[in-house]
């Protein structure tokens, strides 16, 4: 079967940029084409990841985005969840029609309203929006259930923020750079009790681009292509009240990806993971669902040191979403970071161990309504 490779990666800093969105988009896409030695006209097609009105103040935002991505005179399409943009790009290669596909996700979080007013609009205007449901509200209710059902402690959840913000100090592209102690996180305001301010992701800028190529083309473009070896996705009910918030669809998405990649012991076979954790405790819950530890064992898992940068299975060496949250682009950032770890190009946040297999995860919707899992291999 045809294989798909990531040959190159380029990303902007997550920090506030003074550039216009169009110029900000252009810089990173110019960089990736220069790295690959490709002219704009040589790229097969384009898949973008960007969000409309709420995250950009634009309708049909991709219409504005195309010039900066270099899509003029090409086939282009877009998804709002950038992990979907990635898999749609892979499918273009698998169709046999294109040898290269440029996948780019972008947002300038610094230009639009805060996350909470925006995610309030995920709710319908009949039942959820009028009673103040937003992404943080559902996450906080999910966290309370996580603490109460399994006896995971607030300190164990806070440790995720300490770990990820600590890792971010070694990532030149990270947005929130601040060394925090467990006491700092625990003492930060209980904004959505039991969630604390330092356990909630910031709002970041970010453009990230990934160049995909067919097997044959990848070998001429890169000395070290990274291969897509597994993918899975699954969706849950819309109403948070229709679900058990602790038994979502991530295990289903992960199993689909693992089956495709031939993984039966994820805790041993995966070398590093980039997990989408807009709220600290979610990293622990997601790691359970990914099979890195048992049900309700997320607290012990972080206590054991396994997910630390020098642990047996480092999680979010980049600092994750708690450090950098370019909202619709955050999934593709996870994929790009996982690829960089395999390529040994992650720089100061390159993990100590040899990385042959990396996992990237993305989520969106209330309490993880949708999950995507991508497995990449050397």
């Amino acid at each position, binding site marked *: 079967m045809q294989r798909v490779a990531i040959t190159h990666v380029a990303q902007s800093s997550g920090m506030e940029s003074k550039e216009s969105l169009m110029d900000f988009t252009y810089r990173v896409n110019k960089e990736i084409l220069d790295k690959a030695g490709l002219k704009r006209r040589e790229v097969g097609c384009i898949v973008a990841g960007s969000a409309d009105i709420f995250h950009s103040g634009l309708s049909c935002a991709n219409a504005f985005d195309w010039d900066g991505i270099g899509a003029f005179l090409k086939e282009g399409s877009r998804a709002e969840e950038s992990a979907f943009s990635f898999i749609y790009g892979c499918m273009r290669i698998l169709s046999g029609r294109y040898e290269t596909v440029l996948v780019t996700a972008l947002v300038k979080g610094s230009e639009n309203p805060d996350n909470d007013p925006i995610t309030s609009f995920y709710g319908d205007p009949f039942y959820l929006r009028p*009673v*103040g449901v937003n992404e943080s509200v559902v996450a906080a209710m999910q966290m*309370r259930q996580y603490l109460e059902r399994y006896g995971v402690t607030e300190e164990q959840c806070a440790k995720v923020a300490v770990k990820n913000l600590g890792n971010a100090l070694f990532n030149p592209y990270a947005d929130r750079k601040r060394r925090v102690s467990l006491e700092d996180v625990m003492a930060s305001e209980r904004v959505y009790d039991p969630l604390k301010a330092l356990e909630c992701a910031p709002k970041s800028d970010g453009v990230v681009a990934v160049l995909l190529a067919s097997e044959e083309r990848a070998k001429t473009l890169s000395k070290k292509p990274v291969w897509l070896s597994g993918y899975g996705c699954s969706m849950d009910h819309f109403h948070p009240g229709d679900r058990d918030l602790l038994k979502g669809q991530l295990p289903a998405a992960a199993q689909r990806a693992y089956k495709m990649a031939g993984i039966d012991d994820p805790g041993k076979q995966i070398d590093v993971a980039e997990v989408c954790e807009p709220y600290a405790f979610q990293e622990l819950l997601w790691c359970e669902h990914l099979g890195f530890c048992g049900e309700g064992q997320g607290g012990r898992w972080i206590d054991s040191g396994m997910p630390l940068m020098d642990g047996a299975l480092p999680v979010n060496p980049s600092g994750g979403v708690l450090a950098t949250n370019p909202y619709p682009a955050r999934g593709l950032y996870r994929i790009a970071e996982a690829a960089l770890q395999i390529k040994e190009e992650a720089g100061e946040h390159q993990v100590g161990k040899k990385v042959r297999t990396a996992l990237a995860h993305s989520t969106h919707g209330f309490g993880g309504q949708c999950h995507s899992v991508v497995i990449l291999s050397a």
Partner: protein
Amino acid sequence: MAKEYRTMRNDVTLPYQWALGKTWSRFFDGLKDGRIQGTKCAGCGRVYVPARSFCPVCFTDTTQWVDVKPEGKILTWTLVREKYLGQVQEPPYVVALIQLDGSDCGFSHFIGGFDLSDAGQLKRKLKTGAKVKAVWSPVRNADIRDITCFVPVE
């Protein structure tokens, strides 16, 4: 909002008119009359509140309307202290998932009726599993805020 580099502010206001459809209209008309109604799936037996036209699991039409009690238990909750643009009310306030007696899902609404700044009351009244009952709004418009909030029952 002001930045040290040049920006241009742009505010957008757009009206939307969402259709309710038959089932949600009947649900909201029920609220106006002080009734909370669900629909039952003949396939799996689940009772959904608010009422649905179809069971999202079995993917078949729901056929039976049922009245559920305006009381139930707290499944989970959060105390909101954060202030943000366009917020539904001044914080602090509590949002919860409530399982109404006779239903099989969580219903999103406010918990209130006591002083949220009183730590002792908070600890005593706001517990997962605690029993709560609906407080009806004196003015009703056939929408979800016809219920003001749910209050803990001692």
